[in-house]
């Protein structure tokens, strides 16, 4: 019997979680005012997802 953790998440879920966690950390480190932090987090998250999905589609023609 295994005692370790076991997570099974999809590629999209992994990307979303990664983008969200890093955006929140960057937002809190880079800005002081709550409103600025929220703006930074939303913008950073949007760019993470846009670039992630964009790179995914850019690699699609070479995937097989």
């Amino acid at each position, binding site marked *: 019997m*295994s005692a*370790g953790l*076991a*997570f*099974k*998440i999809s*590629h999209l879920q*992994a990307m979303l979680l*990664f983008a969200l966690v890093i955006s929140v950390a960057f937002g*809190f480190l880079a800005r002081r005012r709550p409103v600025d932090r929220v703006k930074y987090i939303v913008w950073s998250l949007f760019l993470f997802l846009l670039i992630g999905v964009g790179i995914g589609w850019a690699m699609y023609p070479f995937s097989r």
Partner: protein
Amino acid sequence: MAEQTTVARPQDSRRETLAVIVAVAGWLVPGLGHALLKMWGRALTCFVTVGVLVIVGAGMRGNLFRSTGNDAFDSLGYLADLGTGTFYLAAKSLEADGADVSHAGGDYGTRFLATAGVLNLLVALHAYEAARGRKA
């Protein structure tokens, strides 16, 4: 032409020592550096974000690099993982079954763990700069 001389004041030296202590504390326990500076929001956020990355990375059975690496990439991975401070030991104990990078999830887990380490180093550096009064 007048020469400019800079004389180190005692409080500068004290502040520098304090900044190094804050940085080391921030590296050992994510967020502790900011907590020592009474930046509670940042401290909590750093602790939670680095912790989530480590838990999910270990849960996805990512590769937690050891000091006995075979090549430069293993050594770099070890340095990145070591950036999580004491969370490195936590990840080790969470990954009781060892790494499994035979599937994509394990590979993502490796990235999560390395990112947690690098993020924590960035956080510790931020705390160091804040303690020196450069930015906050």
